Each structure stands twice: as C-alpha cells, then as structure tokens.
C-alpha cells in the first residue's frame, strides 16, 4: 500500500504539479520551436516520452550497477586489484554526466535507425524531431533527477528502485506532452488573432507559457493533500484512562493501544 502511494505521488508530481516545462524549465527549445501544430506537438511529445523511458531505464541500471560506490560491477572489477573493502569504496559518480549523455545520444541514434528501417511513414512524420531530441534538456533532467534519488541519498531505504524511476520518466514525458499540446492548440488559434509585429513567434509563446505556468501553479500542494488523504495517519490524541494520561496511538478496530505518557 505504501509503495503504491509513493508511485502515485511521483506520477502526480512529475506530470502536473512539478511539470517539467512549467516548473523545472527543461525542454523549452522544442516547446517554443515545435508547438505550431497539434499533431507535430503530439508527435514530439510521444517521441520525447519514448526516448525518456529508454534513457531512464539505461541511466538507472548503469547508476545502480556501475556508478555508485559499492555497486556490484565496480566492486567486482576493483576486487582484482585491491582489498575487497577498498573496492567497495570506488566511487564513479563523477562519470555520471558523460555516461548519461553518451547513453542518450546512442539510444536516440539507435531508435532513429530502427524507426527508419521498420516504420518509414512514422519516421517521415517525426523523423526530423529525433536528432532534435538528443539536445533536449528534459531527457537529461529526468536522468539527473533519478540519479539524485539513487546516488545522493544517505539512508539506504530511500533509494529509488526501477519502478519509481520509470514512473518518473513516463509521467514526466506525459507532463511534457500535455504542456506542448496545450501550447500548440493555443498557437493554432493565435493565427487568427492580431499579435503585435514584434511579439510574433517566440515572444508571444513565452508570454502565454508564463500564463500557463501560473495556471499550473494552481496544482501546488495537491501532492501533500493526496499524501495526507492516503496515508493512514494515526490521530495522536490524549485521553485520561483510569487516572493516567495515555497517548492514544492506535484507535483502529476499536482496541485502544496506548503508551504511558511521561
């Protein structure tokens, strides 16, 4: 039950509350550039979500298995050269940025070749976006968030497992798609309005993006509300039970468990 709540919270916050575009400002270049037509925007959104999930999977597994100190692969290799516990101290997190960008670039290239070979119509429709995606900040940002939850965490319990990493990637991509499709819809209507000459193109898109960001700010606090609603938090209330002040810790299924108060 607790795991499901965490997954739901991550999904909610990645897609709507801390939306990648409106809260974290990643992926603005396609947001300004590609959001002219709704189909193009939707195609771009799907491509980004797809590549983001692959990148998240690869970066999670490489971080857990190679990069963090005490990771199985690095201790195994280091085991040959030094004493075992020194091997456990080998810390390769400094390589994380190169490794992530390398995996992203290679996976985008691989996906592009694969789609070109087996789905030519699909390739023609969003082929032009694929190279653009490599330099898309949203994908690297997703990998960095996953890394900060895997490598930068002191107590072992809070390390993210693969399920949470993939949820972040999928719903982050979903949030990205929502934002870019909304903007594409607005910009299509914009063709008919009288936009002042200096504001045409990117300037008006950014101003509208600002207004959309204010709208999305309305969602802040939703996750803390959902968390409160879903976690069965015990009501710590006090009662006097035969002369002694008892903190009622658990009043579920009406047997009063109490702990003697100091």
């Amino acid at each position, binding site marked *: 039950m607790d795991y499901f709540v965490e997954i739901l919270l991550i999904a909610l916050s990645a897609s709507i509350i801390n939306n990648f575009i409106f809260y974290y400002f990643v992926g603005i270049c396609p947001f300004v550039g590609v959001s002219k037509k709704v189909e193009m925007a939707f195609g771009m959104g799907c491509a980004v979500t797809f590549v983001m999930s692959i990148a998240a999977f690869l970066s999670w597994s490489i971080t857990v298995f190679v990069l963090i100190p005490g990771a199985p692969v690095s201790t195994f290799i280091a085991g040959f*050269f030094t004493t075992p516990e020194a091997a456990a101290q*080998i810390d390769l997190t400094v390589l994380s940025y190169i490794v992530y960008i390398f995996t992203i670039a290679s996976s985008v*290239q691989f996906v592009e*070749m*694969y789609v070109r*070979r*087996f789905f030519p119509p699909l390739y023609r429709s969003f082929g032009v976006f694929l190279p653009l995606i490599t330099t898309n900040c949203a994908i690297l940002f997703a990998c960095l968030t996953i890394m900060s939850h895997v490598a930068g965490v002191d107590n072992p319990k809070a390390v993210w497992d693969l399920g949470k990493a993939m949820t972040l990637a999928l719903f982050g991509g979903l949030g990205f798609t929502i934002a870019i499709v909304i903007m594409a819809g607005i910009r299509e209507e914009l*063709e008919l309005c009288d936009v002042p000459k200096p504001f045409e193109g990117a300037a008006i898109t950014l101003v509208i993006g600002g207004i959309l960001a204010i709208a999305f700010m309305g969602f802040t606090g939703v996750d803390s509300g959902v968390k409160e609603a879903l976690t069965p938090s015990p009501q710590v209330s006090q009662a006097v039970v035969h002369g002694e002040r008892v903190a009622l810790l658990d009043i579920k299924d009406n047997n009063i468990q109490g702990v003697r108060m100091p």
Partner: protein
Amino acid sequence: MMISLGIAGASMLVMAVIFSYILGWANKKFKVDVDPKIEAVIEALPGANCGGCGYLGCSDYAIAIVTDNDPVNKCTVGGAACAQQIADIMGVDVGDMVPMHAIVHCNAPLSSRLGLTQYMGEQRCASAQQVADVQACTFGCLGFGDCVQACNYDAIHIVDGLARVDYETCIGCGACAKVCPRNIISIEGFREAAIPVVACSNKDKAKDAKAACKNACVACKACTKVSDLFTISDNLSKCNYDDYSAQKREEAMKAIEKCPTGCIHFVGTQVK
C-alpha cells in the same frame, strides 16, 4: 588513488566499445537501401522545402521523381537550372520547361460585388472567412490581403478589393495559394505568355450566382459550345491549361466574347 583512475578509464572504454559496437551493428543491420539517385536528386533540389512543387518537401518530391518518375520541372524555386540537373541525373529530357505562376479565380472588384455588409472585424481574410455573409458570394476573394502578406516576392496586390497577380515577379512558389482561406488561388503552368482563365469560383446555381456578383460564372455553357478548352463541373466552367497553345488563341477569344458575364480573361505577360 591510481586504482580509481584506472577503473574510471576502463569502465568508460568498456561502455564506449559496447555502444559503438551496437551502433555499428545497427548501422549495418538497419541499412535502409536508399536509392542513391534519390539522394542525388535531393542534392540538386534547393532544399527550401517550400512545397511549391505540391509535395510535402524536397525529399518527398525527389522520391516521387525517382520512384514514380514525376515531371522534373515542378520545382518552381529551382527553376530551369535545377530541372536540368535532375533531368541529367534521371537521364530524362527536361520536357518543355513551363513557368509556373499564380492565378486568382475571381474577377470581381468591390464595385461589382453584391450583398456587401460593413465588416468591422479583424482586417484579415482568415478572420473575415469565419464571419457569415461579409459579402453575398461565399466563394470569391475577400480582399483583405492575406496573400499579399504571405508573398515574399511582392508579386500580388489588392486592387479595388480584389487580389491581382503581377506576372513579371510571380515565380509560382504557392505561398499565396496556401494562405488564401477561400482557396481561390491556383498555381498553373503557363504554356504561353498569356493564357485564358475562368476568373471565378462560384459553384452556386445561376440564380444565386447572379444575386451574389455581377460577373460570376453562371455555367451557361456558352464557352464550352465555342471551344473544347473549357469544361463545366458543378456550375462552374474551368479552362484546361495544359492543352492550350497559341493556335487555340482565336477559339479562346471567341469564348471570351460569348461569355455573358465576362468572367473569362487572358492573364499573364503581354496580354493583348
């Protein structure tokens, strides 16, 4: 300390080897056998993706040329030079290089339009198109100049509420045709300096057409009787530009006289 340097270098090397191996393998395995001719044709095309040739972009046009050998001279921007280049690549003769120009299928200045209402909205054809009965004719030119704004060769102007093409400068890139909300501008090949055109697109019955405009085509078949250049389809006559040539000039002149509402004109350069 040395160990961590060695491990870092080694793991990067291993990762690089794995990824470049996968990419190399994918490069071989997923080799899409793109016909080298297509790449050559793409190379010859200007690559502006302007859509003047009527295809989605240069690569589409190139594929069309190579696979179902479409005419090589459709690229308006590239003009004769690029058509010649592609012809050499394809080993096909260029065929008569036909200059492409825009034609506005409406010849009603404001004075001859009926049922005009005072339109106070946004002075753009795209917006006026959304509003009902700005003028009685729901097919004809609105005259707010979206095409003028779209054209970057300054080859089309609004004269007395009607879009007029300047055939000296028009290269037929199709920007105006794309932007006209009523789609009454078409890009046609001019076999002669001047060709006859039915400058109307009103598809209503004769009675409504007359109520909408003084010189609308009422599909009275006068032109079709006189010359086989013209055909009637859903209450509107249309000239077949491809098989017009200088010899058929008298035929066309006769049709112009016969036409009761005078909506057939000669357009192009040196209109006598």
